[in-house]
């Protein structure tokens, strides 16, 4: 765990202080992280524990559609599913949020009004992040004005990999400011900011740790692994590194940040592996939709099928769940 000798604000006072801080973070043992994640993935979660895990995972899902072919109809259908994932079973909890492109936020807000399911919007020239700061800030502002309560922004990976950490920092801070008045605490108004690191493009776990800290220092409420457009997307070891970062950040600064793996999580087994990882790394405090999310689309159907299997005792078939 890094010890801060200077206040966080001073860390970000110049490129050199920021670099000194980020490069001063301890390196990640790649082999060790892989082995630890793989070992935690072998935990056996059965019967009542599995039932609880499935319901928790459903409540943590950010039901996502980010395709060029998204239509208002598709978004409305997805919102209906978000509120009532299994129409035949009222005991299934709603998901945490619906995640769409900014232009579809009004449709989602209308469809989810009064349901308690939040609307998240990607912004800042998703998924590549290749645009000017003005455009990114304006896009964020428009999404918030349209009613999005969560903003999923992408970082400028080009700047990050080139070592221009201050540019990345300032961009996140500017987008955070565009999210609304609040300073980041969960209960205050203003949109919640999730910062997508796109770990598949960051090349090393050391970079993942640095990007996590950079995003948190700049004001992220959540750090998110991936856009889902780059392979590899979320992996267990990368999420492990990010969970260690939020745990250490809380100990260092007293501010709690959430984590969201996204992309490539398709089965209940995968989802439960992530929950085990959260519990063993960051701790049970993070086992809550406010602090941990799963960005996914096809995962929800698998969770519902497993849930139905546990309820009826027979294996469920995909014919009985919506296509999306």
């Amino acid at each position, binding site marked *: 765990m890094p010890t801060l000798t200077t206040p966080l604000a001073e860390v970000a006072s110049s490129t050199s202080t920021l670099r000194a801080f980020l490069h001063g973070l301890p390196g990640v043992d790649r082999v060790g992280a892989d082995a630890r994640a793989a070992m935690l993935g072998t935990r056996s979660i059965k019967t009542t524990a599995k039932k609880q895990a499935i319901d928790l995972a459903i409540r943590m899902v950010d039901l996502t559609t980010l395709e060029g072919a998204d239509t208002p109809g598709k978004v409305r259908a997805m919102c209906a599913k978000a509120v009532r994932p299994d129409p035949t079973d009222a005991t299934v909890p709603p998901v945490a949020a619906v995640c769409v492109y900014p232009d579809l936020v009004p449709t989602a807000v209308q469809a989810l009004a009064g349901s308690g399911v939040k609307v998240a919007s990607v912004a800042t020239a998703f998924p590549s992040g290749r645009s000017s700061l003005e455009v990114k800030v304006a896009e964020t502002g428009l999404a918030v004005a349209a009613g999005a309560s969560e903003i999923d922004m992408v970082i400028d990976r080009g700047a990050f990999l080139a070592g221009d950490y201050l540019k990345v920092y300032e961009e996140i801070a500017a987008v955070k400011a565009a999210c609304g008045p609040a300073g980041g605490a969960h209960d205050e108004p203003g949109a919640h900011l999730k910062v997508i690191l796109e770990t598949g493009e960051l090349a090393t776990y050391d970079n993942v740790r640095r990007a996590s800290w950079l995003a948190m220092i700049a004001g992220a409420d959540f750090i998110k692994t991936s856009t889902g457009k780059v392979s590899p997307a979320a992996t267990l070891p990368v999420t492990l590194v990010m969970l260690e970062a939020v745990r250490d950040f809380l100990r260092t600064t007293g501010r709690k940040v959430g984590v969201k793996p996204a992309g490539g999580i398709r089965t209940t087994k995968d989802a439960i592996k992530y929950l085990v990882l959260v519990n063993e790394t960051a701790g049970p405090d993070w086992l809550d939709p406010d602090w941990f999310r799963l960005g996914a689309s096809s995962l929800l159907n698998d969770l519902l099928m497993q849930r139905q299997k546990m309820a009826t005792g*027979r294996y469920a078939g995909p014919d009985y769940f919506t296509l999306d």
Partner: protein
Amino acid sequence: MSERLAVRKTYKLFIGGAFPRSESGRSYVVTSSKGDFLANASRASRKDARDAVSAARKAFPGWSGATAYNRGQVLYRVAEMLEGRRAQFAAEIADAEGVGARKAGELVDAAVDRLVWYAGWSDKIGAVLGSANPVAGPYFNLSSPEPTGVVAVVAPPLGSLAGLVGVIAPVIVTGNTCVVIAPERAPLPSITLAEVLATSDVPGGVVNILTGSAAEIAPWLAGHMDVNAVDLAGADPDLAVTCEELAAENLKRVVRPPAAPVDWLADPGTDRMTAFLETKTVWHPIGT
């Protein structure tokens, strides 16, 4: 020089074109008809059955979408490969059923012949079952048979190769995919057949073969909501009743076990193919 050690083969399951051990790690001893040790075979669990259904479902679009001509060629290829392993199959059948070498050879030949026979049906069954229906209106009205989907098959306990081919070939020739529970007492010809299938252009997942107890696995397949039909050819009466009840939940096609022992060497007719076909009828306006 010391005597050479025998290389004992470990028999595994056949799921999605691969040969995994049972997820449960269990196995059981297979003996000959005289009670001598033959081999250890995997004892499949319900999770293996679930995996097999997933594999079969995944294979279904490709296999049912292949041309009938292509499916016939693939089945013919299976017959060729089977012929090439005649001696191995004959030995396994002789051990399992206690028949003489000559009779065992004839049983293998019968299985090869049956495959060739079914291979020929692939592009003809549509012509036999399909029709252009006369209707009172200016429409073309065409009916054609389509495969039911994923079929769970409880293979017959005796007639181990001819019986096995006699239940698998009619299911897959029309485009279905299947999960087969091999006869518990004599599973070796089934797994050897899996090795034949794996090397004969049959796409992975079209045929999945599980060894173990039908009484344990079959009810899970019969209750599985992603299985479209069950063939209870080898199920005992109690098991058949259980399976049929479970199959009612999602209205699976059910083929009941035969009332009298089946002669798998006799002409089977088309019944086993038609049992796993659905008729699709299309109305199309006549004119320009």
